């Protein structure tokens, strides 16, 4: 049963990923990304990481993808059609590298996992919010605080950047609109 669920979800994720990189229009890529993220959330559930799964849905799928959609729709009228993949030669080289990389990684993971100890029992609340929280406030307190600082920095940075200090070079579409 679990295996079946895994295979379906994995296939969905893979298909979504390929769509992300291959779609002609950016909005399609964003929606495909949503599919990938949702599949991963299911996989996390399968892996006893409930809290993380919820986080994934809320933050990644819920906020980040939405941000992407906003920006795409904001800029879409100006981008026209997204650029084509590029010169043939570069594509082939990239694909070749990618293939090499995949082979390398797969051979890395395909080894028998004898090095990894397997503890028999899993504690009942493994992956729960309470357990994560407990770790966050004891062992990972400092990274936790630093993460808040980084968030603050990000907010400030985004505000500063959004104010727009760079000189604006006129774009035909925007110029038409201004008239």
């Amino acid at each position, binding site marked *: 049963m679990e295996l079946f669920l895994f295979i379906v979800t994995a296939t969905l994720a893979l298909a979504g990923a390929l769509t992300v990189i291959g779609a002609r229009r950016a909005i399609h890529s964003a929606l495909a990304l949503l599919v990938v993220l949702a599949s991963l959330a299911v996989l996390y559930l399968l892996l006893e990481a409930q809290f993380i799964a919820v986080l994934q849905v809320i933050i990644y799928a819920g906020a980040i993808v939405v941000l992407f959609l906003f920006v795409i729709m904001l800029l879409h009228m100006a981008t026209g059609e997204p650029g084509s993949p590029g010169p043939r030669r570069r594509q082939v*080289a*990239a694909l070749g*590298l990618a293939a*090499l*990389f995949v082979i*390398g*990684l797969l*051979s*890395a993971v395909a080894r028998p996992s004898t090095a990894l100890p397997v503890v028999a029992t899993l504690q009942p609340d493994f992956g729960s919010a309470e357990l994560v929280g407990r770790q966050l406030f004891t062992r990972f307190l400092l990274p936790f605080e630093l993460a808040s600082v980084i968030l603050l920095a990000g907010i400030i940075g985004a505000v500063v950047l959004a104010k727009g200090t760079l000189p604006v070079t006129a774009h035909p579409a925007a110029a038409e609109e201004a008239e």
Partner: protein
Amino acid sequence: MADFAWTIPLWPLLGWLALGLIGGRLPRPAVALIGCGSVALAFAAAIVAWVTLPEDAQVKTLFPWIATGAFAVSVRLSLDALSVVMALVVCGVGLLIHLYSIGYMAGEPGYSRYFAYLNLFIASMLLLVLAGDLLVLFVGWELVGLCSYLLIGFWFDRERAATAGRKAFLVNRIGDAGFLLGLLLLWRAFGTLDIAAILSAPPGALAGGAALAAPLLLFFGATGKSAQLPLYAWLPDAMEGPTPVSALIHAATMVTAGVYLVARLFPLFAHPPLLAAVAGVGALTAFFAATIALVEWDLKRVLAYSTISQLGYMFLALGVAAPEAGIFHLITQAFFKALLFLAAGSVMHAMAGRIDMRALGGLARPLRATMLAFLIGALALAGIPPFAGFVSKDLILERAWHAVASGGNPLLFPLGLLTAWVTAVYIARALRYTFFDPPAQSEIAPHESPPIMLWPMAALAALSIGGGLLGAHVVGAPLFEFLSPVLASPEDAGQVGITPAFFVPTLSTAAGVLGLLLGWTAYRQHRDVSLGWVGRLFRRHWYLLDLYDGVLTHAARGTARFLAGPVDLGAIDRAVNAIGALVSGGAAALRRLQTGYVRQYAAVILVGTVLVLAYWMAR
């Protein structure tokens, strides 16, 4: 031992600091007060030291200076009879010259700078004579050289003064190189540079070649500082500085540092070849300088060569194993030479800076006091009894005669006597030219110097007359008594062989009197007595400078040209530029990686990752 005595070098040092830091903002009377007051305090401390001095040398360690395992030096001051005597001379004569300077430098800019340097000089000289360790002595040695440079070039906007200052420093430096080598040899032999330790070490410690080489190198340094052959050339040029500076540094104190050094380390010089070398250099220099003084026209340069000549006498004394006589002459020379310089300064003050004797003359009436001072100094220099110069010079000649009679270098005594005669001639010449026989035209109305300049001269004149009592055997020679713990003084060698006791004094007095008469009469009415080829020889410094020029200067210039051209420009510059070009080229090549395309960067990262992955997998 009163503690106040240990503060001798402290006061002038404080004076230098005060004047150096804030002297520019103080009114002149305050500057003069600090400048002279500090030396007065040092003199008082020296007197306290003299009065309370016990039998043995007192040593006070100020602080450990260098402590590196094998080599350890502490800054140590040592008070004994010799250093006390030197300190008294330095501070006493120094104080008189400071007072004189108040008048001499009255109108000059840089007043506080002058007194600051002067104070620093006194402090450095005191450090030199009070040093208990040779390295500390060397520090004082170098410092007086520095002060000499600063004060010779006091009017640094004058080309000649600046050049003279540099020359003094550089020639001294050559001597100092020898000094340092000597120090190294001494350290290797004794393991320490502490003077007391070196002098009381067992005789075998310094052996073989080092026993001759080390003192000889130190003596080479002394020839630099005391302007003996071969490093004399800086002293005449040093007359570019203010005249009180010439009086203090180049007559009374700094140049005598070389004599002090040899006297202090006399036990090291106790080998016949060393003594012969010292005596030989001294006698030769004395004669050599006296001949040049005879044909000089600049009054201060005459006195400069006279100083060199008298210093030669002191080294002659050291070379015939009579260090106490050398120190005695050092003291009397301090008196009458400083007096002569101060009188010359008085003349310059009256004649608006003129010092060429061809433009002087007829000053006996308007500058009566100065003339008297100069006359007393001249009589002392010429060695006329009972003036101080006679007693000390005569003692040296006696000892030289004694040395010759007991198998020493036979030239020493005749040279000494001949030099005494030439000395009398040139100083009479100077006296005649400067003060008598008015020249054809003189548009300046000379006036006598202010009292602040005359009183120090009077004091020095009194000392030049009565100073002989210090070493006269008829009154028990208190100076030698006092010095006896440090410098063993032999008894009055009255009878030497078949010569009666007053053989030598008679000869020296006769030389002096005859010389004075000759000089006085031959050079009347500003006559320039031409000495023909002999005169030319003297004027060209016996062609010594031409020798230096040819051998040293040309060789140095040639080497410099070679090193600047083919070596520096050709080889080194090319090598450095090549490295630059290498970096440049490398940068140009690597720059092509920076395309600005993000995706290319990502691709490169990927390639790297693949490589790392492959490496790990292979392991």
